[in-house]
């Protein structure tokens, strides 16, 4: 079982959700985050004083999938979230130790 974390532009959330449901993902978690990448933000002015805008709002989507489905899911997210501009985001894949469905107590792949 793997967890796929994707950080994408907020306005791409709907496209990514559609693409994931088409690939067959059964559930996902979304959170609003802020961050920066290689650009490290830019300078703005407020009332004449300069300040750095570095933390940009993004959306993080977390999906848990079986090992076999990982590449399809990553491919789907990449296709849906790409705009070609700087700031499209990143996808992280991590291994999971265990999954439990709270209502029934099922464990492992059956709980995904």
């Amino acid at each position: 079982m793997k967890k796929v974390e994707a950080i994408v532009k907020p306005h791409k959330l709907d496209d990514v959700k559609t693409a994931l449901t088409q690939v067959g993902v059964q559930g996902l978690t979304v959170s609003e985050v802020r961050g920066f990448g290689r650009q490290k933000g830019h300078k703005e002015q407020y009332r004449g004083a300069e300040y750095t805008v570095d933390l940009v709002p993004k959306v993080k989507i977390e999906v848990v999938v079986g090992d076999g489905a990982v590449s399809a899911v990553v491919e789907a997210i990449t296709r849906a979230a790409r705009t070609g501009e700087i700031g499209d985001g990143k996808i992280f894949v991590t291994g999971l130790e265990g999954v439990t469905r709270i209502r029934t107590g099922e464990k492992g792949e059956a709980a995904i």
Partner: protein
Amino acid sequence: MRTVLRWFGGGDGDPALQKKRMVRRSLGVWLMLLALGWFWLIPKYSSAQDKKPEETKAAAPAPAPAPAPQAPAGPKADPNGGNTGDGSFAQDGGGTLFIPADPGAAPEKKDFKDEKEYLDAKKAYDEKKKAFDEYTEQAKKEPLAVKLANSVGHNRAGINMTWILITGMLVMFMQAGFALVETGLCRAKNAAHTMAMNFLIYPLGMLGFYVCGFAFMFGGAGSVATVGGPAVLDGMWSINGWNILGTKGYFLSGSFYDTSVFAIFFFQMVFMDTTATIPTGACAERWKFSSFVLYGCAIGTIMYPIYGNWVWGGGWCSQLGVKLGLGHGTCDFAGSSVVHLQGGVIAFWFAKMIGPRIGKYNKDGSPNVIPAHNIPMVMLGTFILAFGWFGFNPGGSLAGTDLRNAMSVVNTMLASATGAMATTLWMWKVRGNKPDPSMMCNGMLAGLVAITAPCAYVNSMSACIIGLVAGILVVEVVFFVERKLKIDDPVGAIAVHGSNGLWGILSVGLLSDGTYGDGVNGVSGKGVTGLFYGDAGQFAAQCIGALACITYVSIISIVVFKVVSAMTGGTQRPSAEVEVEGVDIAEVGCLGYCGIVMDKASESPVSK
């Protein structure tokens, strides 16, 4: 008895804390005793002043005090407005009364120093008596005309009083505007506290003004002529004929229980509340609520009314025209100096002495940005203020029948527009930034503040120029205060109200064109005229008034600040942890945005 002494002695416990408590408690009691003593002493002292003839007020001379112990006859208060605006108040468009006034008792020889004065007075009296007797004879033959005159007089009073009350209500609504602007420009974690300060200053200031502020400011102002008020505002403390402070009218009692007095009280009270709410912006986000409340007690009672008396209450600044020939004395139509310059100077000293917000300045003195949390709130507040200003400025005529009001309104509107445009273009093209929304709002407010004094006295082009200069001035002063003086002013109160209040009061002395204002402050013969239209004396009077304002307000601000600090544990700031966490919970016990998670990263100042 023991518990009382123990309370004064600071209670038990840590000796250092005990000492502080003792100082605080005794100081509070001393101030209360002082206030009580003032209320008791001043009426006792001022009743001797009442009997001296007032030189600038046009009222029939009161009858000489009889040796028998009767109550001294004075102007009669009129709580129901029944006597207000009878036929004697009716006048034509040019201001000439239809009906001659009853001259009262004849002058007696023993009241005058020498024969010549007595004969002059007797001659003047005889002429008035003749006119009045002729009228009385004629009135017996034309009862309908008398009834018409009474009706017209009453209607005039009614229109004028409606004007005073409605414009006053518009100004009251400006409290909401100030609350929105200040809260929007501060951080979300301090929203409840900032709003609470702006909310509570309204009743605090008002009650202080009711208790004694109005008495100090208007106790000796004469009468409210535009609503036919009797001359009950007749308690003034003077030195050598220069009026300093009013002495009657505490709690609007006694002869102040009069409809015209109540109308003027309402009108002046909402202006006082406008001043009161200015320093809450400059000291926002780092002001203990207890300290703020004590400031609120001081602003309505002593800080605002004293200079207010000097300019509007018949005090010495307004007497400069009559006594020294300087134009019409200090003229401030709607309060650039009385309201805004006072507020700006208080804001300056309070912000300076309370210190900058944590994180505002780096070690090398360079300022950090602490962005506004709600720009829509700021702009909505600015529009509400601009709307309320349509009551603030034209209301100064105190007369719905004064058709110059249309010009006051248009001048106000034009100055607000040129102010906003000037600031936007200055920031955008000259200073090279983007058109900053919060600065735009400051620019509009700057234009409004600057036009407040001259609105009725200038033509439309001058109004545009005044707004234009104000718009540029506010930007430069914001930068100057933030970068050079290193004073943290979250909302730009010092720049908007202080510097433009000064520009406004001086612009009366420069750009007034003389078409209006004949008779203001007792000077007849020409309208209020500025330097560029030929009257240098007016400009001198404006400068003197401005100087008096800045000097007096600086002194009283520093004194009040230090006293309040002593009374609230030595400092008016909350602890550093409270300030960084957000003053909402610690000072007012609830969050402004409860249930909405505030991102900590967006809360702290962002540095270079």
